[in-house]
């Protein structure tokens, strides 16, 4: 029968495979929910899953295949920036809708590109006064050497200096670094109040293990989440770290409870879910609502309807900003529990609108 074809470009192999698995599960969950409730306008949702291998070449090949061979109605997925821009380079040429779920550095601006994750200012702007008040007045940043941490650092610096705080050092480490000793030595001599790590992916594991062994006492902000903590980190090393995220499993609301319950029922009792996954889940639901409302699957119709609808997501109510196709998402600071896996909500900043001076679609 006639179905709504959703193409998924997911890193199933390669460096981002752990996060890819959770993201894929979230899409599967959303599709199952939709299909159980009469699909999209009566049409069942059909997922076309492709592994982009976490590479540029793979992402391009797979996006082309999804569009030309599978003839999908929309493409969703990808985690890190190269996958995203590779996919975007195909979708923007083909004028095909592309929903991107991951936290990203911003800068991408395209009519057919919808971001359901936060950009740096959404996470950082509301958070910095809280940091200044609760954690300290000086920050040392150590990060992986690529665009997202660089943009985050800019956002952090701007917002923090407004509160009178100061960034006293920032070091960017190449991917694949196996020894962070020099950074810890710097922390010892600079004595910042707070350490903010944006070392990501596999290197985050190395970084955190070594951070603990150097016995550093300062509070640590690190972009971790439940999935990563559980699947990648040795038990307990994340305990006490802070992280800004638009979604936490600990959020106490009925939608989230139901989300987690059905996720675990489908994929395993112990399974964790994170902000990226939730943003993917939200993306598919937002698309469904918009398509339903537009009564059409044509990209332009869906796009037109998209800003007019609201979705009751696990993180709270969200909607897409018509001016830049970014999502108004929530911002929470989480604090990792002693088990080093789950988080408690340290502070809720409510919904934050994405402000993008560079972008107007």
């Amino acid at each position, binding site marked *: 029968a006639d179905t709504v074809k959703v193409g998924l470009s997911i890193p*199933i*192999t390669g460096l981002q495979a752990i996060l890819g698995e959770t993201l894929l599960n979230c899409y599967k969950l959303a599709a199952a929910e939709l299909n159980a409730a009469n699909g999209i306008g009566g049409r069942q949702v059909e997922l076309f899953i*492709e*592994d982009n*291998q976490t*590479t*540029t*070449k*793979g992402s*391009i*090949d*797979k996006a*082309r*295949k999804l569009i*030309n*061979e599978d003839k999908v109605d929309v493409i969703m997925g990808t985690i*890190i*920036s*190269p996958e*995203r*821009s*590779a996919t*975007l*380079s*195909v979708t*923007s*040429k083909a004028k095909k809708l592309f929903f991107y779920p991951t936290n990203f*550095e911003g*800068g*991408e601006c395209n009519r057919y590109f919808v971001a359901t994750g936060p950009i740096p200012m959404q996470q950082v702007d509301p958070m910095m006064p809280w940091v200044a008040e609760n954690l300290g007045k000086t920050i040392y940043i150590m990060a992986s*050497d*690529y*665009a*997202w941490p*660089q943009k985050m650092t800019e956002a952090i610096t701007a917002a923090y200096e407004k509160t009178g705080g100061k960034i006293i050092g920032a070091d*960017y480490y*190449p*991917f694949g670094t196996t020894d962070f000793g020099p950074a810890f030595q710097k922390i010892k001599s600079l004595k910042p109040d707070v350490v903010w790590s944006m070392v990501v992916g596999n290197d985050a594991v190395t970084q955190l293990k070594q951070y603990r062994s150097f016995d550093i006492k300062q509070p640590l902000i690190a972009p971790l989440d439940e999935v990563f903590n559980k699947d990648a980190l040795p038990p307990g090393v994340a305990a006490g770290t802070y992280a800004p995220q638009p979604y936490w499993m600990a959020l106490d609301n009925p939608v989230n409870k139901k989300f987690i319950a059905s996720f675990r029922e489908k994929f395993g009792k112990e399974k964790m879910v994170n902000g990226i996954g939730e943003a993917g889940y939200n993306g598919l639901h937002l698309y469904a609502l918009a398509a339903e409302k537009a009564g059409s699957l044509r990209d332009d119709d869906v796009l037109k309807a998209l800003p007019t609808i609201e979705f009751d997501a696990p993180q709270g109510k969200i909607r897409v900003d018509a001016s830049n196709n970014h999502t108004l998402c929530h911002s929470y600071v989480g604090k990792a529990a002693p088990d080093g896996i789950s988080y408690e909500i340290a502070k809720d900043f409510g919904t934050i609108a994405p402000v993008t001076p560079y972008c107007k679609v």
Partner: protein
Amino acid sequence: MIARDRNWLLIFAACAALAVVYPLFADGYQLTVIRDALIFGMFAASLDFFWGRTGILCFGHAAFFGIGGYIMALITLNDAIPFGSLLGIVGAVAGAALVAAIIGYFLFFGGIRGSYFTIVTLAMGVICQQAAVSWSSVTGGDSGLIGIPPIAFDVGGIHVDLSQDLPSYIFVASIVAVVVLALWSISRGRWGTVLTAIQDNEVRAAALGHNAPLRLLVTFVLSAAIAGLAGALYVCMAGLVAPDLSGLLLSTEVIVWVAVGGRGTLLGPVLGAIAIQRAQQTISSFNPSLWPLLLGCVFVIIVFVLPDGILSIYARLKGLFKGRRQAQ
């Protein structure tokens, strides 16, 4: 020797014929797929031109591919530069050649050969990828540069516009054919024979009056220039350039394509590149985690069953055939 040349030309002609009739049976998407594979095929041939004849393995060849790609991107994305596409291609080729010339001069005239060269070029690849990631003000960082326009230019009143699938396929296929043919005729003649001699015994070759380092350098630079050309073409077709196009993974893959296709045959690597990439994407759509395992096994098997690459199947079949005929 003569018979071998004839065989090569025969296979080349067969491939060319296939490439000509292919558009009759393929839709636009399938054309783009083969077009991109052909570009990587040319990239593989460029590595083979150096590796196959000198016996020195370059483990950072993707660096030149990436350099070509980035230069192309920077030139065509800058609206202030006229004749973007043409200038981009020239710049990409020249840039890759220049970098190769500097590094090559340093290494070849410093007496560095063999595994040393391999590992030093490996490091060069690592540096290039890291530079592309961290120098984000120019390179766009890890997300790369997006929105590179398709190749378009006017030569002598003819307007070339490669935004459509068929023209771009034809353009790429003819470039690849010309390049492979050119590389082949260079490497089978005097140039190639002397390179083989240098590979056998460099001191002896020098004592006969051959400037071995210079010859190696020129070969390397030419090989890098072609890699740069491939990079420039690819980024225009893909519309973006990203750091992993100059990375270790691609460097390794291209080595594998050459080895699978048959080192020193130039044509084999092109076929190897197409075959492996298509197999990779097909298998990965079918079962993602199977691919790496399968690929690994394929390499091990190829080494033992087809040590001279897939192109040697032809020679073997022929040998078998001859053997039969003689037996009868």
